[in-house]
């Protein structure tokens, strides 16, 4: 078994832990979604020094969590800003729990007042709306359609305006590690990842939807792969239930890891591209 590594950067402080009990004991839970809400990260670190605890408790520090294995390149699992850092005494240890969100400030505080006088491509509108989010870069915008001849007026929180457009034009938007993306319901990002028993598939079960309980997608448990992000696709190969096999678009990801414990896995909800969900 390869030696797990987690590296946490909070402001100017860098903390690293590994499965051989070197460095800090770092555990984390990262939740990512395709559906227009900030991704969340909760990291616990045991026995930081008093000075470091003081530093990481400052508000809205940039935070970056990279994970991997010893002697391999670390992959960024989460990037955002801290929202809180709370130390708790657990027996002889002090456990500092840091929570953070991805693009939170930009998503929450961005507003827009703009009018389009005619049939502008929706991708242009989405890009300009995303541009109002402070601290958020612009990534892929795979959105079809254009505004009608009458044009459109937008006034209000950017998040809300984007949500309105997602309903009308059939796409999802999100911020992944500080980068805005918008993806049509009929499309996915080009990356496709194989998930099979050989590469960490633990279980897969169908996600049913609607009054007739139609299979809309699949919920997968697998070993943690930090390269996965919402909007990408997975190709599921299940030997236990081959009826589930096929490509799915990742909507929600839930990563759990602990450098000194058992957890090092992920749960993902993925849906059939263009299906009903």
């Amino acid at each position, binding site marked *: 078994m390869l030696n797990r590594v987690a590296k946490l950067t909070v402001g100017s402080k860098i903390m690293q832990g590994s499965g051989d009990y070197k460095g800090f004991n770092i555990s984390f839970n990262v939740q990512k979604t395709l559906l227009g809400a900030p991704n969340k990260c909760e990291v616990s670190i045991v026995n930081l020094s008093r000075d470091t605890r003081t530093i990481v408790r400052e508000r809205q520090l940039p935070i970056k969590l990279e994970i991997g294995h010893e002697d391999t390149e670390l992959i960024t699992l989460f990037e955002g800003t801290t929202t809180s850092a709370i130390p708790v005494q657990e027996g002889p240890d002090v456990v500092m729990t840091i929570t953070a969100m991805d693009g939170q*400030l930009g998503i*929450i*505080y961005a*507003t827009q*007042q*703009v*009018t389009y*006088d005619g049939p502008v491509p929706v991708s242009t509108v989405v890009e300009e709306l995303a541009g109002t989010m*402070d601290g958020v870069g612009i990534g892929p915008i795979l959105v079809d*359609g254009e505004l*009608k*001849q*009458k*044009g*459109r*007026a*937008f*006034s*209000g*929180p950017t998040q*809300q305006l984007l949500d*309105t457009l997602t*309903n*009308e*034009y*059939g796409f999802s938007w999100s911020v992944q590690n500080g980068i805005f993306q918008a993806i049509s319901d009929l499309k996915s990002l080009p990356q496709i990842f194989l998930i099979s028993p050989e590469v960490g598939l633990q279980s897969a079960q169908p996600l049913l939807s609607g009054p007739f309980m139609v299979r809309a997608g699949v919920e997968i448990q697998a070993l943690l792969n930090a390269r996965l992000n919402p909007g990408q696709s997975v190709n599921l190969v299940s030997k236990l239930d081959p009826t589930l096999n096929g490509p799915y678009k990742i909507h929600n990801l839930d990563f759990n890891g602990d450098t000194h414990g058992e957890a090092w896995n992920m749960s993902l909800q993925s849906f059939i591209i263009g299906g009903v969900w």
Partner: protein
Amino acid sequence: MDLSGSKSGTQGDYLRQIIDRQLADTHTSIPAIVESFDPATQMIECIPVIRARKKTIDGVEFTEDRPKLVKVPLITPYVRMLGFSMTMPILPGDMVLLMFSERGLDYWQETGEISDPPEDKGARMHDLTDGIAAVGPISLPDAILDYQIDSMESRNRDRTSSFQLWEDELEARITNGTFTHQKANGDIDSEAVNNINTKVAVDCNFDIGANYNLVVSADDITDISGSGKRTTVGESIEYGESSVKKNADGTFEIHSDAEVVIKAPIIRLCGETIIQGNLVVEDEATISGLAFTPHVHEGVTIGSASTAIPTSSPGPGPAPAACPGKPARPTKPVIPAPVRRGP
């Protein structure tokens, strides 16, 4: 909207935040100021007059203008089937009240008919895009001066021109300028049960209907300057007890209980003249060129025989001018006056 967690964070607070956010995005009605108006399409561009309240990441509150709304259809009294409408001149700076449709107006605005919603999925509801503008919201600085509370009125700002309707009265008034009241064919039709009191400079035909009377009570009628004929079609013109009357059989009467005096150097009666009363000639009379007084008859005899025609007179009178349409009668040669002899 503050979602930074400053509230207590109970379920109720969270629910309230969600409701507030939805309400903030549910547009209902707001005044707006006109930026431009297209009279051909009757669409306006306008900016809502209440700014949006915002907050920076640092928690500093500020406000900013809402976006300009474009292609906003107008509400004005209008019925499309018969085409009646009441229009207003709309200029930049005018106020309108925006009402926001509960669904997208795109296709209705293009077709005027029952239409599909514009979006492919979901439903655009109470969106800022779907405003309809009605002219006329009034702020305090723009309050109408001298607002009439007992009548309906169309008027200009200083009320020098107005069209005012009471329960039992209608008044159109132009203090400075021209009042034009005209049918498509150029006629003016007016009808009154009692009086039409008019003080106007009339530059047109002024016809009074066949069943109505025209009573002119002006002290003087002085300015009838047309060069054409004056035609009276009615039966009579009355002057107190006297009258000038045309009868049904075409005869024409001048009637007076006292005297009819006709004064002129020459009074000519063209046509057979019948005098049913006494004829008194107070001066010389000439009949067919012969002086009636004095004159001479020849061949005067005793008995019932007739005299000869008069043969002499003091001289012929002036040759009469011709009546219209008749050649002048030649002057007869002078015949010696007859000598009247006693019986």
